[in-house]
Every structure is written in structure tokens, then in C-alpha cells.
């Protein structure tokens, strides 16, 4: 089963603040020709990027919450922009999401279990009330929650960790082919994160692929089969997790990995970062201009990096976009 499930082909997204003649317009380029493929075989892919890298935009584009400015998103080989209402409905059943904010995803007006009943109703998962009740119980138990303690509660009565697990129960009900997670544990207590991540791993065994969006390489390393590193709207490196983390090729990835604080006081940072280089992105330089995206902050920057954008080179099991790689020249 290695057929392509979801493909992003040179996807670009430019945000535009609506203007009205005399009211001025503003544009920001969030994504710049991103290509990404998820295969049918259940895998967990982590999309890692810092704030402003456009990682959440990827998630919103896949879910159809935003439209691409250019480029295509193909699901099972079909272009989603050509779809009708009916196709979308089907797609929703097969591609689902867990949002970042466990507080905002629940409508404070309703009980928490409404998110479960809604998908049962909308996706016709049960034929009778009894059956749907059973499904709900089953799904909650699958994520380690006791239905008696959850059903009928209002969102504010539950903790962030519990709410996020109910979101997983919702995924368990729908059983999509692809699950997109947008930093699902960044807003819950550190002590409770592991539980969530374990359930996500279990889902892989159920045949659910996952695109896990995060800024935290630690978590990516823990959960993902492969990682994709995003830097200000462009993919600069990707490959099997183990490989990328232990042997990063791109200077950005290297710096990223070496900067992660190590919970071992005997192995502290030895090298001091250069504040002038790292701390000051030149103001006003946006994405989409020519040259390497990391040029300003790169310690190995060469003359040609300023004017030419390095291509994303594919080798056997990884991709990297940097002129330091001999093949790039």
C-alpha cells in the first residue's frame, strides 16, 4: 500500500487583507511552493517549523478551511479545488483534524459530548440511538476516559488534557484515513502530554495516518516516522526522523537541533550563539524574494546564496535545499 493518499503540489498561499479602494491592502506570503506527500500506508509525519513558518496554514489548506493561492492539493489523485459539495462531505469523513486549542474547540454553550454526537449524525455512523450511545462509550474508553465522567459535562468542567482526548475520541469514531494534528499538546500540561501521544500511536495501528504539526522537535522525534522541516514558508529539509535528527544536513536544521535545551546539566551548550546573526532578521525581507530563505541567519552563507534559491534535492530517503550539498551545484 504505497499509493499516494494526499499530495500537496507546489502549494503557495498568500494572505490578503481585504481592501476597498481607499482602504489599503496588505499581503503576506505564508507558504511558498510547498510539496508534500502522505502515503496510504499508515505513517506519522511531523511537520516542524517555528512560529511564522506557515505550518498551521498547511493544516488549514488541507482541511479546506483556506484556499490555495496557487498549486494543487490532490486527494487520492483528485484535485480538491474541483470538488462539489458531495465530494467535500466524503472528504471530511476521510481527513480529519485535532486543533491546537483544547479550550476554543468546544462551543461553551453545549456539552462536550456534542462533538461526538455531531459526527455520528453527520457521517451516519450509527443506525439507532442505542448503537450511537454504544459508539460514544466505546470511543471514550478507547482514549482512556470513563464515559460516566464525561457525558453531560460542559467544557469548562474538564481539563485541557481531557478535552483533547475527547477530540481523539471523535477521531476514533470517524476513523479517517488521514488525521492532521495542529500542535495538539502545546496547550496541555507537560505531565499529561505523553498520554495523548500514546493514543495517537495506537491510532496508527488502526490504519490512521497522521500529519503532526509542531514546533517541538522533541515531540516530533518521539512520535514521527519522518519529519519535514519548514522555514518561513519553505521546506528546507525532510526525511526519516532518526536520520534528520541524528545527522541534519541543512544549517538551519543543525542549529535548530543543537539549540534544543538538553535536560541533562552535564551536557550544557558549549558554543555561544552569535546574537547579531541569529537575533536580527533583517526587517522587511519577506518570503518569496530571490535567494535562500535562511541567508540572513546562516553562518555558512555564500555569495550565491543571496541571489539564488537552492533547489530541494531528493536523494534516496531525504530531501534538502542547500548549496552546501555538493549535488546542489
Amino acid at each position: 500500500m504505497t499509493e499516494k493518499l494526499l499530495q500537496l503540489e507546489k502549494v503557495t498561499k498568500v494572505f490578503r487583507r481585504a481592501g476597498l479602494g481607499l482602504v489599503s491592502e496588505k499581503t503576506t506570503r505564508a507558504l511558498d511552493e510547498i510539496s508534500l506527500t502522505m502515503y496510504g500506508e499508515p505513517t506519522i509525519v511531523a511537520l516542524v517549523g517555528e512560529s511564522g513558518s506557515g505550518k498551521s496554514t498547511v493544516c488549514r489548506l488541507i482541511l479546506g478551511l483556506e484556499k490555495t493561492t496557487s498549486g494543487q492539493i490532490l486527494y487520492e489523485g483528485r484535485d480538491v479545488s474541483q470538488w462539489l459539495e458531495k465530494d467535500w462531505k466524503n472528504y471530511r469523513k476521510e481527513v480529519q483534524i485535532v486543533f491546537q486549542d483544547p479550550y476554543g474547540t468546544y462551543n461553551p454553550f453545549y456539552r462536550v459530548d456534542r462533538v461526538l454526537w455531531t459526527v455520528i449524525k453527520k457521517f451516519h455512523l450509527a443506525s439507532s440511538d442505542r448503537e450511537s450511545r454504544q459508539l460514544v462509550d466505546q470511543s471514550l474508553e478507547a482514549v482512556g476516559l470513563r464515559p460516566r465522567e464525561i457525558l453531560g459535562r460542559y467544557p469548562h468542567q474538564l481539563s485541557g488534557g481531557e478535552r483533547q482526548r475527547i477530540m481523539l475520541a471523535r477521531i476514533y469514531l470517524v476513523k479517517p484515513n488521514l488525521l492532521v494534528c495542529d500542535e495538539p499538546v502545546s496547550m496541555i500540561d507537560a505531565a499529561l502530554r505523553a498520554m495523548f501521544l500514546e493514543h495517537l500511536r495506537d491510532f496508527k495501528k488502526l490504519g490512521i495516518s497522521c500529519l503532526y504539526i509542531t514546533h517541538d522537535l522533541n515531540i516530533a522525534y518521539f512520535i514521527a516516522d519522518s519529519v519535514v522541516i519548514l522555514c518561513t514558508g519553505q521546506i528546507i529539509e525532510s526525511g526519516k526522523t532518526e536520520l534528520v535528527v541524528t545527522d541534519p544536513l541543512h544549517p538551519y536544521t543543525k542549529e535548530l537541533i543543537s539549540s534544543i535545551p538538553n535536560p541533562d546539566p552535564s551536557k550544557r551548550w558549549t558554543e555561544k550563539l552569535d546574537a547579531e546573526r541569529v537575533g536580527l532578521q533583517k526587517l522587511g525581507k519577506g518570503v518569496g524574494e530571490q535567494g535562500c530563505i535562511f541567508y540572513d541567519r546562516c553562518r555558512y552563507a555564500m555569495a550565491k546564496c543571496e541571489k539564488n534559491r537552492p533547489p530541494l534535492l531528493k536523494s534516496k530517503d531525504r530531501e534538502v535545499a542547500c548549496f552546501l550539498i555538493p549535488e546542489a551545484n
Partner: protein
Amino acid sequence: MQAILEVENLRVYFTTIEGDCKSVDGVSFRVYNKEILGIAGESGCGKSTLIEGILRLVKPPGYIKSGKVFFAGSDLLHLKERNLRKIRWKELSYIPQGCMNALNPVLRIEEQIVDGIVTHTDLSGEKAKEMTSSALNAVGMPSEVAGMYPHELSGGMRQRVAIAMSTCLRPSLVLADEPVTALDVIMQRLNLQTIAELKERFGMTVVLVAHDMACHAEICDRICIMYAGRLMEIGIVDQLFQKPLHPYTKGLLEAVPSLQRRRVKSIAGLAPSPLNWPRGCRFHPRCPFQKKICKKKEPALREVDSEHYVACHLYGD
């Protein structure tokens, strides 16, 4: 070792409709001269409120219920407003979580730094401006930043400006409240290193609050673990990471994945509510080693090893 700050039994409460919210509930510790002391704990454990309490910045409906904070020979909590103002900034300074909103959006960076300088020194405007640019240079920022407004800087840069601002008068003690939270890792590293470097250069003492213990491991000398409004463990950083004593500390260290360790384990149960802390040891409902006594008696912080304090019934008698 000589203590520069001593906190004794500090309690900071918030009045709510449902009763007092006991955010900080009886915290005592010492900060030694020229060290970096880390305070770690999950969100809601009261670590930021603790800092506000020490600085007397608690706003209503919050109030300081009781306690003593000794600094430079006087109790900060009972100091006259006027005298407190003199100590602030010059001796006892504060780095807020700066990436969000710590800088006044309508004043230039320079004006905001100069404000502090002219209040506490007799320097002329010109001299104060010079000091501003040297303070900025000290954190590796060019002097042009002085003429900018906060909205023109990225989150990480704003945090660095806040660091520059807080250290420009070379205070003897700096309390940093989550100075690297919500920053990207590279920026986080840069800021942590800057704080450590300034500390060395100016001979300051730093209290560093952060929820990510890995950050503490990188630069702290000693570390306090806070849970449910109280300190659970205090120790020298190597000791504490290699041989954590309190079950909570152990759990916390095991809960977070890292590039060095792929096995993680959650702490079971939920964080308790500050409106109603559990009786006895506050961690007992989630503790895998709980004994009978844990439900009844709250353990006191006691020295188990040299400079290693823990509040747990598993140790001692």
C-alpha cells in the same frame, strides 16, 4: 553561602466568588549571592504569582496574605512605597515575559529604557541615552533599536529589549518570569545564554522561572520544583536531575520526551484546583508511592542531602 533574598512562608491569595484562590501557599526559600536559581513547575502551580508576590506587584483581587521577603536588610512586604520604589530596578529588577506585551506600544524603546534610568540616577538625558545604547549592545543588539517602537520588533527581539532594560542599572538581583516562553528554540537559546552571560559580567544573581526543565538544566545552579502553590524540592541542579527525590519531580522529568530519551510516562491524575488543594501532601492523589500519612499530614521541606531539600514523607524518619 550568603543569601541575597530570603522568602519566608509567603502566601499570595486571590479573592474569587468561590472563596480564596491560594496560588502561593506557604513558600520559603533562599537565593544565594551570584547564583542562578531556577523555579520549575507546570502552569497553574503559582510560580509567576510567587515572583509577583516577591516584587509586591500583585494586583487586586490578588493580595499578599502573609509572609516575609528579606532583601538588602529589609522586609520588602512591609517597606514604605517610597523606599520600595528606590530599591526597585536599581537593586531588585524584573524581566517579564516580554514577547507579548511587556513593552509600551506607544513609546520608543529608548524612552522606555531612559525612564528607568533617570528615575534612579542623576544622569542627564544625554548620558542616559548613551547608557541605553550600551545596554542594548550588551545583549547583542545594535543601537538603532533604541529609536524603534515595540511593534517593529519580533517577539524574540522584544524579549531581548526587556532583558537589556532590566539589567541596564546592573541590579544585584534579577527575577526573570518566563523569559524564554513562547519563543522559538534558537531564540530561546540565545536569550538564555544572554542572561547567563550578563549574570557573569555584571555579577548579578538571577531567579529564572520557566516551565521547561531542560532550560534550567542548561544554565541554572540550583532549582526549586513547585507544585500546587508550594515548593516540593530544592536542590543543586546536577543532583536534582541525576537523583530526583520527590515523586513529582521524577514524574515531571519522565513526562517530557527529548532527543535523548524516547520513553515517556505521564503523571496520572489531574492538577488540583487552587481553590481547594488536597489535604495532607498536595501531590498524594497522583502519587504512586502514597502512604497513609500522606493523606493526613502535609510534609515539610527538610534537608535530606547537603543542599538538597524535599517535602515528602518517603524520606526521613
